[in-house]
């Protein structure tokens, strides 16, 4: 990438549905846009592109609807046609100025740290699986739904042996479909939520026909699979109790659960499995937002701590907007319209002329999408009992090997926030910086102290937000001027030419 490519009017972090739509909207207003994405190619989880097949043209024959990868390819092509620069393999690590971020770029000649500067930033960093510890969750062969979908979508890996999918949320449906289409022996899906929750909310579903049709489409697909002889066993109101095996996953113990997610005595059964993917919805990926000092607030069942924002997706941090799952889990359609709204409003905020009617229309559509997302969140609640049920001897923080018992033992009334408990236990201090254990520590402390998770706050997140090789930072340090006393952390910004070699 050339030096000039690192400056843009608008910098978008994340090239998923929200980020790509944000980029397109901003570009349509005349802004120059640079999109960074840490994955090997643009698209995000929903539009995940197969690696090495990016130039494959045409859809798969014999299928009516476009696959999500095809839709994603179209969107990426439109973005590129609009002059938007998309940098894959680009991992944000730190903030270097008001609207400047340092990222690790990996190119043909290796990795280096470079700086991207813009007048406004749009955070579209998405979310990651909400994995909740249970006995055996650290066995090889136990994955998350997002992880297993990435495996089959990006590399076409065929998992050998029986696969079980479990947890909760509408995401299990596309993952199940991805697994079946990849030729996997998916034997069972254990969805903790019950269909009865749908009936209780039927009235509020009016007006969301398009979204319901997508869900119905999945349901019809699984019925067709069943009719054509697939032996997929889809169970509602049940969950994984534990995973077992010698050195790797061999068996999964499942049980029917009551309305609070607690297993009902006598309903346990054992299923053979070589792979198990368990996830209870998503946790917003707010690390970049934290770098930029954005305010986070807690959204139960919709991403945990998410980026706070107003109706124009403005975060309150000057020049910083957010869109999609990072602003609260809402699904693909919600991410797309939030991206568009954020793109328009970010462009407007830095002086580009934007048709006000387009913003009004986007706001209106967004409200509708959010209403449906709120409904979905109610349909697939994450029972707090899942956190209470983590046995003391089960490791919660896999990086630092901290058990639930060690976390509970360190809790005290005077430890009032997640960061203090992190400090006392080392939970969240490893490579993943609490991405997978953070919500578990928050929930455990909230329960022990009898306060809402909102009061516990998120764990501190520190740069570099992803591990980085010391030699890359040393090289960055060597080519900078000596740091002056006037260069406080807040002002620690290099000159515009200092980012390049």
């Amino acid at each position, binding site marked *: 990438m050339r030096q000039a490519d690192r400056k843009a009017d608008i910098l978008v972090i994340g090239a998923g549905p929200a980020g790509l739509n944000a980029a397109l909207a901003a570009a349509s207003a005349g802004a120059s846009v640079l999109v960074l994405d840490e994955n090997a190619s643009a698209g995000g989880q929903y539009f995940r592109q197969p690696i090495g097949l990016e130039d494959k043209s045409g859809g798969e024959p014999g299928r009516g609807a476009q696959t999500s990868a095809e839709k994603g390819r179209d969107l990426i092509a439109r973005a590129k046609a609009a002059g938007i620069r998309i940098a894959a393999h680009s991992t944000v690590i730190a903030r270097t100025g008001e609207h400047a971020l340092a990222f690790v770029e990996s190119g043909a000649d290796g990795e280096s740290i470079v700086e991207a500067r813009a007048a406004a930033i749009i955070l579209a960093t998405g979310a990651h699986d909400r994995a909740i510890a249970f006995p055996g969750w650290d066995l090889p062969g136990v994955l998350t739904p997002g992880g297993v979908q990435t495996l089959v979508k990006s590399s076409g890996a065929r998992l050998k042996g029986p696969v079980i999918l479990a947890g909760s949320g509408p995401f299990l449906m596309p993952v199940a479909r991805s697994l079946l289409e990849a030729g996997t022996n998916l034997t069972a899906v254990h969805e903790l939520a019950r269909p009865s929750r749908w009936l209780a909310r039927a009235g509020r579903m009016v007006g969301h026909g398009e979204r319901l049709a997508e869900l119905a489409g999945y349901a019809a697909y699984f019925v067709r699979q069943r009719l054509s002889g697939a032996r997929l066993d889809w169970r509602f109101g049940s969950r994984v109790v534990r995973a077992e095996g010698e050195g790797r996953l061999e068996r999964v113990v499942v049980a029917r659960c009551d309305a609070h997610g607690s297993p009902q005595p006598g309903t346990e059964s054992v299923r053979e499995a070589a792979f198990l993917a368990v996830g209870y919805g998503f946790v917003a990926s707010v690390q970049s937002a934290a770098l930029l000092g954005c305010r986070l607030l807690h959204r139960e069942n919709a991403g945990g701590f998410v980026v706070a924002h107003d109706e124009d997706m403005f975060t309150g941090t000057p020049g910083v907007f957010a869109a999609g799952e990072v602003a609260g889990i809402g699904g693909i359609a919600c991410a797309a319209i939030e991206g568009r709204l954020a793109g328009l409003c970010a462009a407007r905020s830095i002086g580009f002329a934007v048709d006000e009617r387009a913003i009004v229309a986007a706001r209106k559509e967004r409200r509708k999408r959010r209403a449906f997302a709120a409904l979905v969140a109610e349909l697939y609640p994450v029972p707090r009992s899942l956190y209470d049920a983590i046995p003391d001897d089960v490791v919660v923080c896999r990086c630092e090997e901290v058990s639930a018992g060690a976390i509970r033992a360190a809790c005290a009334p005077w*430890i009032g926030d997640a960061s203090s408990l992190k400090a006392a236990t080392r939970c969240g*201090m490893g490579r993943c910086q609490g991405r997978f254990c953070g919500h578990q520590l928050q929930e455990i402390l909230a329960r022990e102290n009898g306060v809402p998770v909102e009061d516990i706050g998120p764990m501190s997140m520190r740069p570099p937000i992803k591990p980085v090789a*010391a030699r890359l930072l040393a090289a*960055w*340090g060597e080519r900078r001027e000596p740091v002056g006393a006037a260069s406080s952390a807040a002002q620690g910004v290099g000159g515009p030419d200092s980012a390049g070699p």
Partner: protein
Amino acid sequence: MASEAEHFDVIVVGGGVIGCSVAFYAAGIGARVLVLEKAAFGGGASSANPGSVALSSKQPGRSLDLAIASRILYETLQAELDADLEFAVEGNLTIAETPEELAFVEDLSNGQRLAGVPVRSLSADECRALNPLLEGPIVGGAHCPIDAHTNPFLVTAAFARGAVKRGAQLRPRVEVLGIDQGEAGKLTVRTVNGPITCDHVVNAAGLAAPRIGAMLGLDHDVIPRAGHVAVLEAAGPCARVKTASASQLLAKHGPENPASRAGISLSYNYKPASGTILLGGSNQKGIASREVSLDIMAGIIAGACRLMPRLEDLTILRAWAGVRPYAPGGPILGRAGADERYLAAFGHGGDGMALAPVTGRYVAEQLRSSRELSLEEFLATMPGGGGLAALAVEMNEHAAGDA
């Protein structure tokens, strides 16, 4: 409607390692103690430091005397607090990169030796023998085998737990708004949750200490000094001895470090309990921001890699910045010119973790005493440099036993 305000013998303002140590020892002499912390316990400088319990970084005089007494207290602190503090005696190696720096280290070491610290001058080769990662240009150094390090989070938490066990109350997120001198010698501490009365206020508020002192008309001088540390994932053979460049001491004790005004210098600290290397640091005088600057972090890494090139192969997990509450003449302890109702315990600079035990003891002794107890009088009751000789002998015996 006059509801009776709560009353305590002692209200400690500030829930860092100093405030928690004060609470532990004050509760130990039977005082009813309340600790008020405006944010989170141990959330300030107490959790943003490498846990150094060192003597070789201290200037001879009051600062070193305090450090010696505290170092001896640390020897039995884990038993006293019934907690694993990850206390490890791995020694400290100070390295000089220029003849001028070596002269400074020699001068400092001489003073420390006079006070009883077993610090030994080393040639460049002897330094490399102690820490084989040192491949960059050095001219010599000094080694203090009894310098130690600990896990700062565990120390603060153990003092807090110990204080609670002794009946102290700890309240996070309670900000002090004002202190009124009421009738009958009582003080009224006004908080966001209402007034609380007490006989004594201990100001252990760190950076906020001047604001608390001003509530009683006192003028305290505490200057922020920000410092950065990068956390590396340890892999391969790691030298256990803590290794710091003399420029770090110059940044700490000197007025300004001309080579780099952020005071960037090497401080290598291997933490076997967590499998990490803490790499410091910076000494940004007058800076109170805890935001991490990538440039300073990178400057630290670049400098460290010049002296220890093999660090280049490691991975950086995270970095943090903390703010040392620095008082120009050393920590402000005791009555500090006020009457017997007020006790100061702040301004430890970068030495709060090392000096927490002795600070807590001194404040508790002052609370127990009916008259003003000078720090010198108090230190005379503690084992001094003579006590270190015993530690050093023990160390040598260990070493002999291992060999």
